[in-house]
């Protein structure tokens, strides 16, 4: 008998994972809202507005990290342009936020301020529908999805791989940044969008809205984790990992890698877009610097630090690096880029499996028999997993068995 879908969904995450999710949900939906809204500011457990927004922002980054890990850790495709998809989602929702300002802008006009400043008389065609919340949400997913789909289709069809693919994605986000910097593009030029007032008529700066956005970010992250976990433990995920390890073998057993990569790639971009849409109202600004190449590289650093090929690693990495960042950019702002670079080098050299890899190593060192925790899949139900020798849990770093290198034998 085939295992029903819901059972497989539940089985895709170990019990510990579900418990962790439940605790997280409790903290994010009950604990923090209570501490922020109900406790007086003088109370020692009160969570400040700054903290709620910061945590909400980091939750959005964590979603991006999970999306990045799905395509990099599991499909072996390193994107250095994921910041583009994130920013596009942010811009799409930002358009709606700009329209919600209504006549409360500095010029008191119907058009967003920057358009008045440019002496535009009416909205450009692509702003059509931007006063609709539903359309904005749709656009936040569809715009990055469409761009990723078209770009991915041509790149994967041409079998562009490895560092070449990474460089092209880097160029893509850079080109988009230059485009968005132009005033004529119609997205506010280098100032981008800011001074948001309302969402669905409710004040965006109210504690309740802040808490709601935070709770929604937490919900999105949890949904991404469940979805991601299902994907990587499904046959789809096994094919994806097989493509990463030996693509030509996958073709010769009858899978079309193009479709698999394209699906994961597009889905990953769409998740980034959603994260961007939640991010913008929480930080109150979106501008083209979100598309700068450095931002996209930073996303890769989060995943590398946490440990790619494990979803929890991506979440941890995004959390650790961003908490460090918000501390460092206050304490010694000018050294942060150096610190980030150092972090990346150190992790690549000494922690190839990131924090999660380190933790596993420590745990394996303490126990006589190393625990076989396979990040990529669960063994088929009804089977037991053999304990693996140390090192066997490092899936991405063994040389991929690229098949049949020499064409002319």
């Amino acid at each position: 008998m085939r295992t029903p879908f819901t059972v497989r969904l539940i089985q895709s995450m170990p019990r510990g994972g579900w418990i962790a999710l439940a605790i997280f949900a409790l903290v994010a939906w009950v604990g923090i809202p209570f501490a922020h809204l109900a406790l007086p500011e003088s109370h020692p457990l009160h969570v400040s507005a700054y903290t709620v927004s910061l945590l909400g922002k980091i939750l959005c980054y964590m979603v991006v990290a999970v999306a990045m890990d799905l395509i990099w850790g599991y499909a072996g495709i390193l994107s250095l342009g994921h910041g583009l998809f994130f920013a596009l989602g942010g811009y799409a929702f930002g358009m709606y936020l700009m329209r919600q300002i209504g006549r409360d802008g500095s010029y008191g006009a119907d058009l967003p301020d920057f358009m008045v400043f440019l002496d535009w008389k009416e909205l450009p065609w692509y702003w059509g529908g931007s006063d609709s919340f539903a359309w904005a949400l749709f656009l936040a997913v569809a715009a990055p999805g469409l761009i990723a789909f078209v770009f991915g289709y041509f790149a994967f069809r041409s079998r562009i791989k490895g560092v070449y693919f990474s460089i092209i994605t880097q160029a893509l986000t850079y080109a988009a940044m230059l485009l968005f910097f132009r005033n004529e593009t119609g997205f506010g030029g280098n100032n981008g969008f800011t001074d948001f007032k309302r969402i669905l008529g409710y004040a965006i700066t109210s504690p309740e809205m802040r808490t709601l956005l935070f709770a929604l970010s937490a919900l999105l992250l949890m949904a991404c984790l469940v979805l991601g976990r299902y994907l990587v433990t499904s046959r789809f995920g096994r094919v994806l990992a097989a493509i990463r390890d030996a693509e030509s073998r996958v073709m010769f057993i009858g899978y079309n890698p193009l479709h698999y990569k394209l699906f994961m790639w597009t889905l990953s971009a769409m998740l980034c877009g959603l994260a961007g849409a939640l991010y913008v109202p929480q930080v109150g600004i979106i501008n083209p610097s979100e598309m700068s190449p450095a931002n996209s590289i930073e996303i890769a650093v989060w995943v590398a630090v946490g440990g790619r090929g494990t979803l929890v690693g991506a979440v941890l990495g995004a959390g650790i690096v961003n908490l460090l960042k918000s501390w460092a950019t206050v304490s010694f702002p000018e050294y942060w880029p150096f610190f980030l670079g150092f972090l990346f080098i150190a992790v690549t050299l000494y922690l190839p499996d990131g924090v999660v890899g380190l933790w596993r190593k420590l745990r394996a060192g303490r126990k006589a028999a190393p625990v076989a925790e396979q990040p990529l899949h669960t063994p088929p139900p009804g089977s037991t997993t053999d304990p693996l020798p140390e090192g066997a849990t490092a899936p991405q770093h063994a040389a991929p068995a690229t098949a049949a290198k020499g064409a002319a034998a």
Partner: protein
Amino acid sequence: MSAVTELERPDAADRENWDGGANTGHPVRPGELDLSHNVILYLDDISVSFDGFRALNKLSLTIDAGELRCIIGPNGAGKTTMMDVITGKTRPDSGKAYFGQTLDLTRMTEPQIAHAGIGRKFQKPTIFEHHTAFENLELAMKADKRVRRSLFAALSDDERDRIAEVLRRIRLDREADRLAGLLSHGQKQWLEIGMLLMQEPRLLLLDEPVAGMTDDETERTAELFVSLAGSHSLMVVEHDMAFVEALGGKVTVLCEGSVLAEGDLATVQADPRVIEVYLGR
């Protein structure tokens, strides 16, 4: 075996079919293997060049349905390139390649060819090292391999049984949950053969399948292949003459990209041209 006359050539039949097909006596079903002339693979005048080097030079070769054929030849004779052409990895510069009577291999992609029923085992064992032996077989299993099916695929009891059966056949039933990367070299070779079996191909291309195997493993591999012949067609590229002898099929000698000699092993080994190629001039 049967000499191919002009009239029997699959491409001739194919032309007729496409011209209307009324007088060929059977309908052409696109995408389906047609063995009506008992030929499963047909290569005609295939040439492939890489940067001026002629890897294949007007190669012509046919394999009958159910046949077990060994391909031998010195290094650089074009054996792997020939497999690349058959599996769609390399496009020939000229010539025809048909699977059965109707499937033009030069117009199909690698996954299409795999679905049509050609399975390939690489020279270097290429298995999915980070998947278990069981999962390797699961991925290779003949199934709907589109994304939307893989997303929701779950193994049925029948499918589990089939995987278990192949695991027994390749003697890896006790290693089912081991990561394939941790298997011994010979076991990896067997696993890859098992993956081929899971695909249920009609034609198996096996590139040096016993390289690195112990004598005992080699012997068992030969038994396995002989048992497969008949219900499957096999093309085995091999240097190990004892293994070729154990297989006992017809032997084709490739040299410099074309067929030098063909026949049973004894005849071929006695052929002065073959001796010259192997022993040098």
